């Protein structure tokens, strides 16, 4: 009997779901470019002001209302007090990004806790909790945010809290849906069988399995929160001088369009670039992590 020669066919290397997602994300060119842009913007905002010879507060009386120029690093020009707009934009960006990230964190925590509890406990608790979410959806929350800013002043953490208080609704819905489907899985039955209590099942078994969805939805939440902060600042109800944010700068620029249009255009460009970057990264992540679409 002739020896059977087995040719070894290269099996495709098996990949972890995370590696697959990463490959798919990198292949999605729009999302990858957006991610690079986002990294550049964040680096610029947090490191950039340290590298510039100008700072956000000092006036340069020899350079008042200067159009964008390469001299003296006034790349974005200066305002009517001779303050460098590039540094002010970057420092303002810090506030906007910090509000965006902190707000996403807080609203994410509320959303996950709310959604996971409602989804896991089910029944009447679920019905009541989700009815509250429905009710909050119907509220025009920009007005409530304005009311809260009126009442409690305009401190930074209050801006974050106010915005977060109304941004967790989508997260709660999505997490609840996921939890409902997780609840009927075998490993939850197993956990129940060995006597784990509800709270531990939610925190130890349900929540870790939600990470993928939560990350995607958190990314989708960021632009909305950045935008809300900017609107409040634009209306003069957000952070106050000497702190600044993109909304404050844009509002200031909009007042002086006729003489110094760059005061509007430069901060507006930064805000739009950030919104573009975050929303495309979010879309890319959603596509990359979607198990239905291989």
């Amino acid at each position, binding site marked *: 009997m002739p020896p059977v020669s087995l040719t070894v066919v290269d099996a495709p290397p098996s990949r972890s779901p995370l590696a697959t997602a990463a490959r798919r994300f990198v292949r999605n060119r729009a999302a990858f470019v957006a991610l690079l842009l986002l990294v550049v913007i964040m680096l610029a905002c947090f490191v950039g002001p340290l590298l510039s010879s100008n700072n956000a507060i000092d006036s340069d009386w020899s350079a008042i209302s200067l159009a964008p120029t390469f001299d003296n690093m006034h790349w974005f020009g200066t305002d009517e007090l001779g303050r460098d707009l590039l540094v002010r934009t970057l420092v303002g960006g810090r506030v906007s990004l910090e509000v965006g990230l902190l707000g996403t964190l807080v609203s994410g925590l509320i959303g996950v806790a709310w959604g996971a509890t409602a989804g896991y406990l089910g029944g009447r608790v679920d019905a009541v909790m989700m009815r509250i979410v429905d009710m909050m959806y119907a509220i025009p929350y*920009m007005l409530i945010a304005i009311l809260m800013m009126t009442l409690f002043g305009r401190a930074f953490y209050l801006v974050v809290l106010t915005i977060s208080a109304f941004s967790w609704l989508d997260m709660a819905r999505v997490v609840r849906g996921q939890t409902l489907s997780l609840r009927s899985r075998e490993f939850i039955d197993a956990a129940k069988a060995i006597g784990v209590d509800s709270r531990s099942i939610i925190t130890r078994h349900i929540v870790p399995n939600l990470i993928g969805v939560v990350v995607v939805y958190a990314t989708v939440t960021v632009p909305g929160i950045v935008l809300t902060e900017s609107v409040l600042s634009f209306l003069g109800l957000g952070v106050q001088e000497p702190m600044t944010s993109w909304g404050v700068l844009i509002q200031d620029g909009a007042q002086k369009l006729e003489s110094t249009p760059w005061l*509007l255009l430069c901060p507006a460009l930064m805000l739009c670039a950030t919104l573009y970057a975050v929303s495309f990264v979010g879309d890319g992540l959603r596509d990359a992590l979607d198990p239905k679409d291989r």
Partner: protein
Amino acid sequence: MLAYTLRRTLWAIPTILAVITACYLLLHLTPGGPFDTEKHLSDATLANLNARYHLDEPLWKQYLHYLWALLHGDLGLSFRYTDWSVTDLVLKALPVSLGVGGVSVPIAVVIGVTLGTIAAVRRDSVIDHAVMVLGNIGNVVPPFVLGPLLVWVFAILLKTADGHGWLPAGGWGEGEWRYRVLPIALLTIINVALIARVMRGSMIEVLSGNFIRTARAKGLPARTIVLRHAMKPALMPVVSLLGSVCISSITAAVVTESVFALPGIGQLVVNGAINRDYTLVLGLVVLTTAVAVLFNLLVDLAYAWLDPRIRY
């Protein structure tokens, strides 16, 4: 259907009541009263003022008082604009907001539905790409950036022969159309971006359905298929969007009216907030919430009525 209508209507009441109660409590839990000014008021004056505004009664009594007045359409007196009741201020500002938002929503629906339909029927055409680009602009360029940009281009850069801008940069001008063009354009662009994208998506989905294939197979012209068969089901997501479009028009009004200096409801909210005019802001929050809840209710009912598959 009747039971469903009743149930939904009944659910709207606790929502509105919850918002009123929460806002009312927030307002009264904050330290400081409306008459804590730098100018010192004599005790007697303060006592008179507090009595005038019922601030000397216990909180629950004030609250019931407010609710009772609210039921009669009385939103209380403004703390800052003396001699004005909140209701009067609202009635004065409402025509401005309606004259901008109320005009823009129907225009946006017509343009958005048309563009979305053409984009879906002619995939990869110029219009299709334009709709996608517009959708992305709507996502990325917020109204408070787009508004000043419109002002910059149409009121400052583009000049008529006598050196004035094409259009006024702001103001209401007693409702003259020239003053309304830019704000209406701004709101319309934002809404068209949203509606066209949703319409495109839903039309594409409907056009891939079995009943459309059947209609094609029996030789109906493409025009009839789109307008007679596909349009109705494709409009459903737009109907459900209408609620949020109308509500976001209220919110967008805050920004638009601030950009174009229009004396409407949005401006009233912002001024009330900056002046800490509690009754005014509270009244406006209550009003807009009621309107928003009502819109949502109407959209839900319209949806159930239009879609024969939904039975409750």
